[in-house]
């Protein structure tokens, strides 16, 4: 997709996620050490960094799976750690979360996996309405023929796509992708990258893409946030981030290039 076309739909006056001074530790281990950033409406930010730098912890805090030790996290104008269960659930309906290992319910087939969040959250839906919604998202991820298959019968790339479809069924305004291309071959990675961009365009979502894959970051992020040791080292357009003599940045770039 032509990314320059997207620039005009990013509204830099309206931030959908706003994070100020975020800290998080697990016992002795400090994971996030003062994160500040804004995600604007319609924008994709790729958070790039080595494994264990706290990237996934960041999005788990955004969706309320983890609580911050310090700092403020505002999502769609609401401070996440101050919400009660009901308010948090209402907010979560507006956020899609794609897990690193897809996290498909392995006792359910593809249809049931997709219909489950819908039927559990929206009461009194007719069978036809559920089927239409499932067909729509399966069509969006290009896996119409996998309707009755079990997750164990799907390839890694297909699982990722179904995982994304499951989040799309609730029509989220924000998408959070945790390592969408990890463990995939280059061709499947390219397909998943294309899908992330299609989702941004088709569903008009704002997204955070957590990745250690430079290609994924470059092709999906309108901005790149380079994360190191629980802090954002650099944040900006891809060229701005990597046009640097910083040893850490160069080291990461070279590592990915070799990979």
């Amino acid at each position, binding site marked *: 997709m032509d990314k320059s076309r997207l620039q005009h739909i990013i509204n830099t006056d309206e931030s959908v996620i706003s994070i100020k001074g975020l800290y998080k530790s697990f016992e*002795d281990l400090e994971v996030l*050490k003062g994160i500040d950033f804004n995600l604007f409406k319609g924008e994709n930010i790729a958070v790039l960094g080595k494994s264990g730098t706290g990237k996934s912890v960041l999005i788990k805090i955004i969706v309320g799976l983890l609580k911050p030790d310090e700092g403020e996290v505002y999502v769609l104008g609401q401070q996440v750690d101050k919400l009660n269960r009901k308010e948090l*659930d209402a907010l*979560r*309906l507006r956020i899609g979360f794609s897990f690193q290992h897809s*996290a498909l319910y392995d006792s359910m087939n593809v249809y049931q996996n997709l219909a489950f*969040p819908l039927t*559990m959250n929206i009461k009194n839906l007719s069978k036809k309405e559920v089927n239409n919604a499932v067909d729509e998202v399966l069509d969006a991820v290009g896996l119409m023929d996998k309707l009755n298959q079990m997750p164990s019968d799907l390839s890694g790339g297909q699982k990722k796509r179904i995982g994304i479809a499951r989040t799309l069924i*609730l029509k989220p305004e924000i998408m959070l992708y945790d390592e969408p291309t990890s463990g995939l071959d280059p061709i499947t990675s390219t397909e998943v990258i294309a899908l992330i961009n299609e989702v941004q365009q088709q569903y008009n979502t704002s997204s955070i893409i957590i990745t250690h894959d430079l290609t994924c970051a470059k092709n999906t992020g309108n901005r790149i946030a380079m994360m190191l040791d629980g802090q954002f080292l650099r944040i900006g357009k891809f060229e701005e981030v990597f046009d640097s003599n910083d040893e850490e940045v160069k080291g990461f770039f070279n590592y990915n290039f070799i990979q």
Partner: protein
Amino acid sequence: MINNNTKKYIFSRGIDDYFTGVHKAYKFTSLFFKEVIKKPFHIREVINQCFEIGIRALPLITLTGFIVGIVFTKQSRPSLEDFGATSWLPSLIGIAIVRALGPLVTALICAGKVGSSIGAELGSMKVTEQIDAMEVSAINPFKYLVVTRVLATSITIPILALYCSCVGLFGSYINVHTEETSSIISFYQDAFSTISFLDIFTGVVKSIAYGLTIGLVGCYKGYNATQGTRGVGKAANQAVVLSMFLIFIEEVIIVQVSNWIRYF
């Protein structure tokens, strides 16, 4: 920011961890009792789980109940024969099976068969982030996974215990019938003549307690599983060991209480 989170223990790591574990288990149990009365009730999932648990445990309970009936009758016969009291066999077996053996055997089998499977299932869902996936889809995983399973074990195990008692009595009848011809009706009449309402009531109450224990322990261990696949195995194993331990403690307490009521 300086990290001030270096953990200091009140007593020692082991003792602190033990009390933290007890507190976590208490909170988990309280949450169950809070959530069980709140909407939505997921009745279809409860029925589904009851069916799963019943089907899973039924063959083993049938076989074990039957064998317990035969063996217990065989073992009791010589002692009663010494006193010329073999005619008391049906009532002796009836009391033993309905009061103690039926519920206990059912609970132990379900702890092994159902408790481990709940622990492993939830443990696997936990380590593969399926529980988190429910959470981020605005579905309350505790309500959907834990409450439904604990309710199902609490409903199904008393039914299975009554069934086990009936099968055990039938096993006993087969043994009695091979030794001295008697009709099944007179055997059951003799067996039930000494069983009071309190016996059946206590049997049902203790089976409900066992069901709650098996469900809660299995769910707690699975829901808090860590360390990947190793954690899943550990959760399943601990679910069985801890539920069996608690079942024996409950057995002693309930027998004591029911005896007080009986002789009050």
